[in-house]
């Protein structure tokens, strides 16, 4: 099992002919992901070739054509910020079940519109933007994470941060603990999938036995997650919140990572998670061992 993605996932890549899109589509294919096509307006009818994977995929002018002709059920978006919201909505319109948007730097006003459309329908889920994507080790890597650090297993990982996700996964793998699915939900203030959405799915997934949740300063998604864990979550959770030493009012890399008006501090999030029974890793080097201690 695992959640959201697996061998059944058929992916089209928006921006497959761009530098980042091409590089990562190739590495996803090499990992074994079914990349069934790409979308680049104006390059429809051509064929894209992956150097590392040695595989190719047809390029379409529109997401609609791509989905019609390949039966894709997932979109992976790499297009630059000015055009990213358009690509996400094009994928929603084309009817895929899952859109994974890697792009960092989408204006928040664009995301407010995207969010409005997402909230008005139930077919399509968005992961990201500004995230590493999602991986079900051994079957589907849909994003930019290094595939080789993962192992198939039973720990779910959900995180706002890319490299901290790799850190957690690497620690788990070193301890002999594989992962069911690892998801980066991204560090933007307005996003698609949130902690609670992912936790609900992990809760229902018999293959997931425990979860590492990685948050950071800014917003209150971790506090909402803590409330859900306290009342509904049945599996052990280890947590870490980045930015305990971040100064208030400063944006720390991620657009959403800012303490504003004294709200969204690491201390307040940790307190909520501890109250919900989550064990907080004392340092980011201890995320794996903290989870292990709960099994």
């Amino acid at each position, binding site marked *: 099992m695992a959640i959201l993605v697996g061998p059944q996932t058929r992916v089209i890549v928006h921006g497959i002919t761009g530098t980042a899109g091409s590089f990562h589509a190739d590495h996803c294919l090499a990992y074994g992901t079914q990349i069934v096509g790409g979308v680049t307006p104006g390059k429809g009818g051509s064929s894209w070739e992956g150097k590392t994977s040695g595989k190719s995929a047809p390029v379409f002018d529109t997401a609609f054509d791509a989905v019609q002709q390949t039966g894709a059920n997932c979109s992976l978006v790499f297009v630059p910020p000015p055009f990213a919201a358009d690509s996400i909505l094009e994928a929603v319109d084309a009817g895929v079940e899952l859109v994974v948007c890697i792009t960092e730097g989408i*204006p928040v006003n664009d995301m407010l519109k995207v969010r409005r459309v997402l909230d008005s329908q139930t077919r399509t889920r968005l992961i990201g933007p500004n995230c590493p994507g999602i991986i079900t080790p051994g079957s589907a890597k849909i994003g930019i994470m*290094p595939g080789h650090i993962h192992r198939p297993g039973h720990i779910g990982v959900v995180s706002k941060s*890319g*490299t901290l*996700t790799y850190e957690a996964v*690497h620690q788990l793998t070193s301890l002999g603990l594989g992962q069911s699915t690892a998801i980066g939900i991204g560090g933007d*203030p307005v996003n698609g999938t949130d902690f609670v959405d992912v936790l609900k799915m992990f809760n229902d997934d018999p293959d997931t036995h425990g979860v590492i949740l990685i948050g950071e300063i800014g917003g209150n998604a971790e506090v909402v997650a803590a409330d859900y864990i306290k009342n509904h979550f049945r599996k052990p959770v280890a947590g870490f919140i980045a930015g305990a030493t971040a100064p208030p009012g400063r944006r720390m*890399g991620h657009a959403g*990572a800012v303490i504003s008006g004294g709200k969204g501090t690491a201390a307040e999030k940790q307190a909520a998670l501890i109250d919900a029974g989550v064990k907080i890793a004392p340092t980011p080097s201890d995320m794996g061992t903290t989870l292990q201690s709960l099994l």
Partner: protein
Amino acid sequence: MNIHEYQGKQILARYGIPVPKGIPAFHAAEAAAAASTLVAETGSEVVVVTAQIHAGGRGKAGGVKVVKGAEAAEAAAAKLLGATLVTPQTGPKGKVVNRLYIEQGLQIARELYVAMLVDREERRVVFMASTEGGMEIETVAAETPEKILKQWIDPATGLMPYQARRIGFGLGLSGKTLQEFVAFATKLYAMFIAEDCALVEVNPFLITKEGSVFALDAKINFEENAAFRHPEWDALRDPDEENPVETEAKHAGLSYVALDGNIGCLVNGAGLAMSTMDIIKHFGGEPANFLDVGGGATKEQVTQAFKIITKDPAVRGIFVNIFGGIMKCDTIAAGVIAATREVGLQVPLVVRLEGTNVELGRTMLKESGLAITAASDMKDGAQKIVELAGKGA
């Protein structure tokens, strides 16, 4: 990105929002001339001289002077220019005043608070207002939250007149003032969207004795991600308000925030960079900066990052913490070696590499002959750098 009050008011005025007449001034003589012009235009002797710094709380800190006539305006301006203002938002060091805004004085009947901002929890722009004009909204929110009125705006419809009316009636407005308030709110939302704002705060929002509305202050914060569609923002930046090293880092494609400690950090990824600061502090050290070289940094960017870190005279040690995913460890190693050869290495350097091509990267560092301390993991690296650089700032 923040802009000055007078710049904010100029934008408000472009959208037809009533603001007091005003003229920016950079010298005392300009302030006198501006005051004369305003007195002639308005027929009133009263002018307000306001310090232009990117911080609220200027009134209480002595940055706002109400005076009569050009001579008094010049004297007030001479005192304010070059002075350092310390407000709750400037930090203890305060900010030096280099610009002033000279404005007509208005007869105040009521002061209200009005703001629009992105509400991340509701995933909407929220229009909020309060009868407690002039007060810090955080204080009002903490002490009397019922005095804050809110309406969330659907991006598909924009702010609807009924929403503005609900807030207006809630503030106790009526008649002509209410109509002016609804028009004001509609224009403010149009501006918020078209100018890609993250926050617009009008505090105080003024009702005159004649019942007319005016934006008496304007704090505008733009959404940095939308900079690509606003080339005009560059002209609004005030270099005096920005940390020059942070600006340099930004141009190099690096995300850098200066801090007060003594351990420089070079990390890939925002979350890992934040937690690197955290783990340094956990072992008793003080980070000198947040620095994210990004997911796909080049050798040149790593070199740039090194130069930026070593510019800070407080730095007594450097911790490079990389989890190479897309970024290969040998690329990082090459960057670190090139940078240390170019910039020189005056302080201890601890490097932790993990991920793609890690063995190659570690071998390159070892064989470089440079005095680099290798760390097996993040914890080991943090402990080593704190030991080498010394605890505390």
